[in-house]
């Protein structure tokens, strides 16, 4: 017999890249589970099937497609899409229909302020994104005292920046520059010239891959040399090094997950096993998007197994609410709003052309390079 999940993801449009990665994560999980005979509920084995739709990176379409999943395909187990806007729109639909969603693709805090009962997210929320990079600089010498924060004016990045600011201030750093810029901007020269005037020790960019690349290039152009240069999105993606070559060196990034984390996992055995399986299937390294997809699905599966039912949403919800297990994504627990707690972020740094996990210490592969050397 089959157990059917549904997912409306961005397979085309501006989020096509991330959407596809999340889908890869789901697919890998599906294969792994089915190879083992499927999900075991009440002594029966259910083969996993996932129905996919493409929301074209349009949240409204996403909502429509989730509605299709629920009403036409009769699926109530929804795997989340990628992107906060999409999760926003689609989770409103699952909530209305009493379907349930586990998502590993959105980190906005606002998602959990709506009193939804049926939404669970495994990403560390945006406002906590930069905490660990800031944490990392503590007690290092020469001491960092000032920080500049720039962010793209979208939901996710704004929250990341807010959190970064709060965290910086909490850690006694002085925020000397705090400014947003339009999403997907093609030029940041003015911002960078202004930052240069402030000469901050730490520069934190909260944006997306495109603007991160522009920012790195222009920081080098204008010879701005902070002790720490960190981004919320970018350094964790393999394209970062491909695009920037040597200029990517020593840049920090925060990661929901990295390949080198040493966690156990109920489906794959461990994070390392997951990475191996992923590489075998897709001939490339997994990143936190795909791993998030896989992890969300794993957690969903475990909750269903615990609930002992494939269609009693209340039971599954209860199982998720009381969830407490180690997975490839870390030790997962949810608070009453459905957001993951205490998972934390990993910090990576580009060293010798590859990402190395450098923080927190108990998962670090090597020590961080601090301060960042000047541009070549």
């Amino acid at each position, binding site marked *: 017999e089959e157990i059917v999940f549904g997912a409306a993801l961005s*397979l*085309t449009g501006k989020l096509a890249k991330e959407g596809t990665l999340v889908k890869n994560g789901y697919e890998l999980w599906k294969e792994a589970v089915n190879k083992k005979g499927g999900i075991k509920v009440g002594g029966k084995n259910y083969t996993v099937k996932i129905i*996919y*739709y*493409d929301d*074209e990176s*349009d*949240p*409204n379409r996403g*909502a*429509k497609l989730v*509605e*299709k999943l*629920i*009403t*036409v395909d009769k699926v109530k187990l929804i795997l989340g899409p990628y992107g906060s*806007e999409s999760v*926003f*729109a689609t989770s*409103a639909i699952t*909530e*209305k*229909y009493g379907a349930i969603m586990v998502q590993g693709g959105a980190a*906005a805090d*606002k998602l959990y302020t*709506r009193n939804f009962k049926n939404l669970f997210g495994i990403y560390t929320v945006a406002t906590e994104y930069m905490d660990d990079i800031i944490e990392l600089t503590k007690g290092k010498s020469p001491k960092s005292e000032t920080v500049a924060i720039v962010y*793209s*004016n*979208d*939901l996710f*990045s*704004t*929250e990341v920046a807010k959190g970064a600011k709060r965290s910086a201030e909490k850690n006694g750093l002085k925020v000397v520059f705090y400014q*947003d810029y*339009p*999403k997907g901007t093609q030029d940041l020269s003015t911002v960078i010239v202004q930052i240069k005037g402030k000469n901050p020790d730490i520069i934190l960019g909260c944006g997306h891959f495109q603007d991160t690349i522009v920012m790195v290039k222009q920081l080098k152009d204008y010879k701005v040399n902070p002790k720490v240069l960190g981004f919320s999105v970018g350094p964790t993606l393999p394209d970062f090094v491909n695009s920037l070559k040597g200029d990517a060196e020593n840049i920090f990034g925060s990661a929901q997950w990295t390949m080198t984390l040493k966690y156990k996992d109920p489906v794959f055995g461990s994070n390392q096993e997951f990475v191996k399986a992923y590489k075998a299937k897709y001939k490339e390294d997994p990143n936190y998007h795909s791993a998030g997809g896989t992890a969300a699905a794993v957690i969903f599966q475990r909750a269903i197994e615990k609930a002992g039912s494939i269609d009693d949403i209340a039971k599954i919800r209860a199982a998720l609410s009381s969830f407490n297990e180690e997975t490839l994504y870390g030790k997962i627990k949810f608070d009453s709003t459905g957001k993951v707690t205490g998972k934390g972020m990993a910090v990576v740094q580009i060293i010798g052309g590859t990402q190395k996990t450098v923080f927190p210490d108990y998962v670090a592969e090597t020590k961080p390079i601090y301060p960042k050397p000047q541009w070549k």
Partner: protein
Amino acid sequence: MKDKKIILFFLFLAVLIFLPYIVSGYWLRVLTQTFLFASIATGSNIIIGFTGYPAFGNIAFFGVGAYVTGVMTTTYNVPFLVTLPFCALSGFVLAGILGIPILRLKGHYFAIATVGIMETIKEIVDNMVETTGGGMGLTLPIMVGEPEFIYKYFYYVMMLCMLLSVLICYIISRIKIGYALRAIRVDEDAASVMGINTPLYKTLAWAVSAALVGIAGGIYAYWLSYIDPHTVFGGTYPVKMFAMILLGGATTVTGPLIGAFILEIISELVWSKFIAIHGMVLGLLIICIILFIPKGIFETFKGGFSFRKLLNNLRENSL
């Protein structure tokens, strides 16, 4: 002939009214979305088709309507239906004010100016973080009730919005003003020396257009319950709207509506069939529509369908 058309229209209406009791929630949503586009296209057609001013950025008023409803329901707890007249009003007033300088432009220039306005409003909304939530978007209160009920509710509300647009277009096309607008479309100098107060009528046409689109925006916001500037201002909406108007025929009352139905339903079918390549297929589809039926379905197949007509069209429009 005319009677037949009217009967057909009412028949179509009757089907729409009973449909919610037959089809699934998903298809209801597809239809609601279709109504949404039909409202936007029909409403915009007053300025675009009737008056000949290609208000490409008319979606601006859709966004404004959406935010009016959004802000009113969240910040001031105003009931949803009460916000709709305000959506209309805000579109009307805004277009009325902007129309005076902008409607001096013609053709492409006007089209671009409206896009400029749309983008400007979007950026302003994006930056008014206090009231609109800026780029973080705005979460509207979710309507209470059974999903079944909610979806029928929006289905009918959106349908009424569409019918209102069609009705207003119909009235305009029948009365004196309709003649003025059509005259303006072709030649403004000639229209003005014949006694038509062209700035007034143009502005009026745009304002009415904007009001209708504004209402659609208001309903959309409450329906989707989450809005952000990037989705309600622009995206693919303007082009889709234009494609619908052209597909159905810009000079007719029901053309845009028919265009909306055809395009939405076709793309829906295409979407579900060709998951990986649907974008390419959709692009090719639009190209083919343009190549073979550039005058819109109405004009082209007035006297029945034939392949020769398609070829003739191709020959007539090519160099």
